[in-house]
Each structure stands twice: as C-alpha cells, then as structure tokens.
C-alpha cells in the first residue's frame, strides 16, 4: 500500500484503534485534514479553541483509559494547546498531540506560523518528536502511542512539518504491531523481596494507613486495591486524583487527605506508624510541611516511576512496578503468610479514627438563605446517584466541594485537573467524556470564573449534540482566591470579584442550549431533576450560591496535618495536636 504522509497519519490513527481526534485546522495541517475528509474511521471533533481540544482528549483519556488524540496546526495552534498538554502531563494522562510544523526547508527561518514546538513543549511532555522524513512517520506515531500509554503515562507531541505530509510523495506503508526501544523499558513487576518486606511491616503495624492516588486509577488496580483493604481491614484515604479507586461509601474509607482533606484522614496521617502509599506522589497539597509529615511512620511506596519515590519524602520500602501487578503479588504474599493483621490492635486504631470522625468535619448548615455550595453538590449526588454518572470539574472552591461531597464509588468517574489546576478544564473535558459514553450522564461542576475560560466550547457541544449538564456554582467571586485573601490578606479582595458577569441563562440559550437560573434552596432539587430529565439537551444551570462560603477543613500551605482550620461553626479555630 503506497500512501502519502498525510494518509499515513490518518491510517496510523486508524490502525492504532483511534476513534476520535479533537482538533482545529490551519495551514500546516491542511494535507492531513484533506486525508481526514475521505474516510470515516477516525472521527474528527472540531473544537472552538485548541485548549478545548486538548482538554477534551484528556477527559476522554481519563474516562476510558485510552490515549486521547489531538490535531492542531503550527504556531498559534500549537501554543494554544500547551496549557492542555501541561495539564495532562501533571496528572500523567496518556495523550498524543499531532502538531503541524512549517516545511522542513524553512524550519529555523522564522517562517509564517513557525514556533519551536518541540522546544516549547519539552518540559511538559513525556516525550516529543520532530518527524523530518515521511519514512519515519509511521514508526514515530507508533512510538508516540506506546510511550504515552505505558509506564507512567503522559502526553507525547509529534511535530510534523508540512512537506512530510505532501500528498504527491507516496511511500509504502507499514504500521508496526510492536515497537522496541532500547532506551525505554518501563518496569512491570515489583521486586518480590521488597513486597515481602512491605507485608511484614504491614503486619507489624499498630496504626496503619493506606494512602492511594491517581496511579491506582491509571493502572486499573481498583479491584486489587479493594481486595487489599478488605483483606487487611486497614483504613484508606485517597488523594484528589485517587477518588473513586475505592468506594467512598465503604466504612473503611476515611475521606480525602491533604489541604482540604477530612479531619479523620489528616489526623490518621499524623499518627500512623506504617503508611502504605500506592500510586501517589506526595504532592505538597497532600504532605503540607514535610517536617511534620507522618512524623511517626515507616513508609512503603508503590509507584511505577522510580523518580516519584523518595522525591520529597524519604521512604523506607520502595517498590517500583505497575500497581496492579504489585498489589496482586502483595495479596498473594499476604494470604500465604503465617500471620494475619492483628485485629485487637486494629480495633483500637479504628476506635481512635471513629472518634475523629465524630467531629463531622464537613458538616455545614443550609438554612433557608442562600444556597450553600455543599448543599448544591449533595443534592446533585442525590439526583444522579443511580445513574451512570461522570463528573468533571473546573478549578476552585467548587472543585473541592465536589471532591468532598460527591462520594465516588467507581474509578474514572471523577475527572479534574489536580496537578496543574487548570481553570477552563471542566467543560471541554466533559465533551470528551460524553463523546466516549454517549448514553452516560455527564455533568461539569464549575465556577463563574472558570467556565468563562473555555465557554466557547458550548458551540462544540451544540454541533455534536453533547447533552452535558453544566452545574455552575456561581458565588460571584474567584472563591478560592477570595478565601485565601480572607485568611491571609486581611480580607483585601484584590481583583477576585468577578464583575460584569454575563447572563448565563441567556448565554446558554444563545448557543442553542437550555439555560436555568436557580437561587432558592427549595427549588434546587426540582431544577436538577428537570435538567437531568432532558436527556438530549445541554442544560446550563446557573446556581447562585452563598458568596462567603469557605472550604473547610483547610491546612495552610507549609503547615502540618494536625494544624487544620475547621469550619467556624465546629469549634473556635483550634489547633489540634
């Protein structure tokens, strides 16, 4: 089969099993767009901004576990995509981003729409390529998919100069089934000796805590994790990225940990003597001040990326490997072990944890006044709990309220930007999810500031009939910024008031969607029910919430887990040691 470079790109995507490509055309990729025109295997979704394309492909990848694919032009197309690439990189999301480039003979001459895409993206990709010869195209695309999806996943950019896709140059096409790279060999199995050591340490533990993150979801290991928790009887806490990897309704789940984690999770971290970290990377929003982090604990860390281990916190038993394989082996070692976890000691530990639980750190008072954002999320859960539900989020207080108040029972259902914290992520990410699962119920929780960052994608939703439910918790402020200004800048709300807001109901309607405005707590549930009953329409719910609400508990940056601020109604802001 002889194909042009442009046809090779499309054929390679097809051979890779790619269903969707999110993209935006331009000069440098016109040959590729022409090749897309004549086929129906790879569906192209036309976004309204390249940032939207990257977040949509990213949302698709997070929901399905498959590689998200993006196609953009050179120069401004590529630079617009950078925020989305960095977002995926920080959360280890597998993506392949195809960028057009100026023709090879003019690279380096400041040609029209030329930027050094490989240079610009280098620090925020797992790897990137500039393809200089059409003969290298198929192999490079294969490598890109392989690198993106294996080991610790991440985005890979393939920069393709226009002459490489020339329709008049045709070469024999062969897409490799497998590719070997001598310089890239991700680890699969964990070291059995280390696993045995970890198990002994776990059996000796008096106050164990299992702390798990996005790696469990990325590595498809929820089942193994759940079995481990059930077998051991240990308490488990999740990072923001790990929510859903273990059912939130299970009594052994003690909530999210970290800056806005639960009292019980953070106190358990502070007192634990054996911490079992699984697919989590000891982010500073989780650890707080390193000097105060788990002061009494021996630490076991399972991670596929050796560089994640002992990066910020020294660990005692490192285990490098795919979390699924390591947990599988760990469960076997546990079962064959002559000892069992000491139930008497665990009982004492659980009593202590349940004592902290009684604090009911997430409690709030709705009352008859303004809608509380917490209530808005709880009611959302009430209305959607029995459906096949996915929730994406933007960034801010609403994101934290969603993480705290929506109990996720399954992996890949909670989709948000944790590492980069990219406002504008939520709506396009929901497009990717809805595209992947047309029959599922997909909602995006957002803020009035965040939603305006990628609002143009409402048009994409219209074009592709994506019946997303936008749940806007409108507090009139960049709430998360306002909260920090209230706490740390004596209430000087410098530029965090979101003035001159559009009428969101009318805005949604002008895009051809259904708009709603809700400001009375008594109307909320009914409004949700009405909105979610519109199965084939995008409904934009502008929910006016209490502008002064804060996210609690909160650990200030640089403080320890035991130094949480609790909601004022729970206590005078006591420091608990």
């Amino acid at each position, binding site marked *: 089969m002889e194909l042009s470079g442009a046809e090779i790109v499309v054929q390679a995507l097809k051979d890779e099993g790619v269903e969707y490509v999110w993209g935006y055309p331009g000069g440098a990729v016109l040959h590729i767009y022409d090749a897309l025109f004549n086929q129906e295997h790879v569906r192209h979704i036309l976004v309204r901004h390249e940032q939207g394309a990257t977040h949509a492909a990213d949302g698709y990848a997070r929901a399905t576990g498959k590689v998200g694919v993006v196609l953009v032009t050179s120069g401004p197309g590529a630079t617009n995509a950078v925020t989305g690439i960095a977002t995926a990189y920080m959360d280890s999301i597998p993506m392949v981003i195809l960028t057009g480039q100026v023709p090879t003979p003019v690279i380096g001459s400041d040609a029209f729409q030329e930027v050094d895409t490989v240079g610009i993206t280098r*620090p925020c990709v797992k790897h990137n390529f*500039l393809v200089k010869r059409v003969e290298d195209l198929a192999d490079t695309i294969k490598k890109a998919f392989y690198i993106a999806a294996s080991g610790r996943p991440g985005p890979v950019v393939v920069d393709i100069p226009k002459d490489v896709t020339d329709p008049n140059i045709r070469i024999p096409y062969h897409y490799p089934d497998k590719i070997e790279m001598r*310089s*890239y060999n991700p680890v699969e199995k964990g070291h059995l000796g280390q696993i045995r050591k970890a198990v002994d340490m776990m059996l000796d533990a008096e106050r164990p805590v299992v702390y798990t993150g996005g790696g469990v979801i990325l590595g498809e290991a929820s089942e193994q994790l759940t079995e481990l928790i059930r077998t051991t009887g240990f308490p488990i806490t999740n990072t923001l990225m790990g929510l859903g990897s273990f059912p939130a309704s299970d009594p052994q789940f003690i909530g999210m940990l970290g800056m806005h984690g639960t009292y019980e999770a953070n106190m358990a971290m502070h007192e634990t003597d054996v911490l079992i970290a699984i697919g989590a990377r000891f982010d500073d929003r989780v650890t707080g001040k390193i000097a105060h982090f788990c002061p009494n604990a021996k630490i076991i860390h399972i991670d596929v990326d050796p560089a994640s281990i*002992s*990066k910020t916190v020294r660990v005692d038993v490192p285990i490098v490997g795919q979390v699924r394989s390591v947990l599988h082996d760990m469960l076997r070692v546990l079962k064959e072990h002559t000892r069992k976890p000491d139930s008497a000691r665990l009982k004492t530990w659980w009593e202590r944890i349940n004592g902290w639980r009684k604090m009911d750190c997430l409690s709030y008072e709705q009352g008859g006044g303004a809608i509380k954002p917490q209530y808005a999320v709880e009611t959302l859960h009430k209305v959607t709990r029995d459906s096949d539900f996915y929730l994406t989020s933007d960034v801010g207080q609403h994101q934290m309220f969603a993480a705290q108040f929506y109990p996720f029972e399954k992996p890949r259902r909670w989709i948000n930007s944790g590492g980069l914290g990219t406002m504008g992520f939520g709506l396009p990410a929901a497009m990717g999810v809805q595209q992947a699962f047309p029959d599922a119920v997909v909602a995006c929780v957002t803020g009035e500031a965040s939603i305006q960052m990628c609002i143009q994608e409402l048009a994409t939703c219209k074009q592709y009939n994506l019946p997303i439910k936008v749940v806007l918790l409108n507090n009139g402020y960049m709430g998360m910024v306002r909260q920090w200004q209230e706490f740390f800048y004596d209430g000087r709300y410098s530029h965090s008031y979101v003035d001159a807001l559009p009428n969101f109901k009318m805005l949604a309607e002008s895009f051809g969607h259904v708009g709603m405005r809700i400001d009375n707590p008594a109307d909320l549930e009914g409004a949700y029910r009405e909105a979610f009953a519109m199965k084939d329409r995008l409904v934009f719910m502008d929910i006016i919430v209490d502008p002064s609400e804060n996210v609690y508990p909160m650990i200030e940056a640089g403080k320890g887990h035991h130094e949480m601020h609790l909601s004022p109604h729970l206590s005078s802001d006591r420091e608990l040691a």
Partner: protein
Amino acid sequence: MRHIISVLLENEAGALSRVAGLFSARGYNIESLTVAPTEDATLSRMTLVTTGDEAIIEQITKQLNKLVDVVKLVDLSEGAHIEREIMMIKVRADQAMRDELKRLADIFRGSIIDVTDVSYTIEMTGDGHKLDAFIRVVDPELIIETVRSGPLGIARGGRRLTL
C-alpha cells in the same frame, strides 16, 4: 558532594537539550557537561559534573534515566574511576618569559602547540586540580585566554558503560 555522571544517550537532535533543560527546570547544579558521539554512531556519551546531597543526586540520576533518549548511565563517583580534562591556555610569551613558561609547561607535562612572536598556546591534560594548579602558577597578567573541556570520566578496572 561532587559527582561525575556518564550517560549514554541516543544520538538524536534534541537529546542534549533534554538533559540541559532537565537541569535548569529542576534547579540542579551543573558544573560541566561534555558530549560527543561514540564508536557506535547511534549513541552519544555525555559526561556531566554536578553537586548535591545524596537525595538530590538520587533524583538527578532517576530523572536522567526517565528521559526517553537516555539509554544508560553510571554515577562514576560511586566507584574507582579516572578523570581527565583537556585545557588549552594561551599566554603572553615575550622573549624574557619564554624559558620560564616552557619549563612550567614541562613540569606539568603540557606541550606548546602554537607559537607566535608574543604568545604560546599550551595544551595540557589532567584532572581538574592539576589544571587549576597550572593556572595558579602562571602569572595572571600573562594569561590571554583559557579553554577547558570539562572532565571526562571512565571507571577503573573491568566496569564499563556500554550497551
């Protein structure tokens, strides 16, 4: 602590900037870095000298290994090894100074590789301390220019860094 790390990497455009970018992005120290192709044309060998405590050096080697273009690396400082650096130093050499400069170069086993009416260029190899020492004994007024390669390193004995 000073460490000297040897890296085999794919001889690809951009591989060097990935390493350099890693050091600047993560704020690691880099004292010197040399790179050249090897006998296998698809591979380059890089030698870099860095400083940091144990935890930082551990991160540096892990982060380097994580780069897709890096095939293999070794921290030479972990075992017995040999280091050599080459220097070319151009000095003012008028008639009065010529003998003295020649003698000094001989003591340090340097050789004069270029001569003009007013200057000598001396080539010298050795470890960094030796080159530093030579620079110290030459009157600073006389030094016109120096250029140093940065150290190269190889393990002693049977240990080797090859594919």
